[in-house]
């Protein structure tokens, strides 16, 4: 199971992949495409990535997590166009007890957001679109209306 996928994420399958008879606690995190951003209506979005680095960085995060806590962990992130309500990222963590399962799951999503080269382009109801920039004051850098997404970078 690859970390990056253009197909809908099989959340049940991801959870199943971390199950084991000794694991008494399973936590999961689902990121879901929402219909608003900074008070603006979002109609759809598109994820792109520096895929080889994103895969490598995710693997590093998973290895760190397994070495820091006694858990089994799995992760998948979507790429490409997505509709409102779809699952964009899923994390499943199984631990012997809930404490390590919760903290490890939180660690994975926070590190992913900080380190993994994935980008999100939002399309708004007013016809504008832009790259999401968590460091910008309003969280988005607008492009010209109708500007074409760079497919080359998205598919690498």
């Amino acid at each position, binding site marked *: 199971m690859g970390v990056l996928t253009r197909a809908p994420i099989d959340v049940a399958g991801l959870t199943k992949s971390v199950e084991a008879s000794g694991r008494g606690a399973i936590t999961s995190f689902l990121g879901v495409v929402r219909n608003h951003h900074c008070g603006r209506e979002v109609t759809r979005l598109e994820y792109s990535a520096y895929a080889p680095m994103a895969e*490598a960085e995710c693997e590093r995060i998973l290895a760190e997590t397994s070495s820091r806590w006694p858990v089994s962990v799995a992760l998948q992130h979507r790429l490409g166009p997505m509709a409102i309500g779809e699952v964009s*990222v899923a994390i499943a963590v199984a631990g012997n007890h809930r404490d390590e399962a919760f903290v490890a799951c939180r660690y994975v999503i926070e590190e992913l957001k900080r380190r993994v080269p*994935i*980008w999100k382009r939002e399309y708004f109801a007013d016809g504008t679109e832009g790259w999401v920039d968590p460091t910008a004051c309003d969280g988005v850098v607008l492009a010209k209306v109708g500007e074409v997404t*760079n497919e080359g970078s998205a598919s690498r």
Partner: protein
Amino acid sequence: MPSEDLSIISQMKSLDPTPIRVLLFGRYAELLGADHLTVPVPVSGTVEGVVDLVRQLPGGQGLPDRPLAAIDLVQVPLNASVRAGVEVALLPPMAGG
């Protein structure tokens, strides 16, 4: 030609700028109008030097002074050295999740 001279020529050749492949993504690719390019980086150059060269290209002024960067799939600080054969990636602010 004495061997010392050959050595000098060899050293002079090593001072030639090295072509470095630079990958661009998201907003940066749109600014430059390309998802990859090649810039001539002086020997003992750094990622910061690569950024300076890219910023001189049409559209490059829109890049931040200190973008995130990676060499060969690993994030690095801007003072990291670049050498022939490496691939430098300039990374817009990450927005996964």
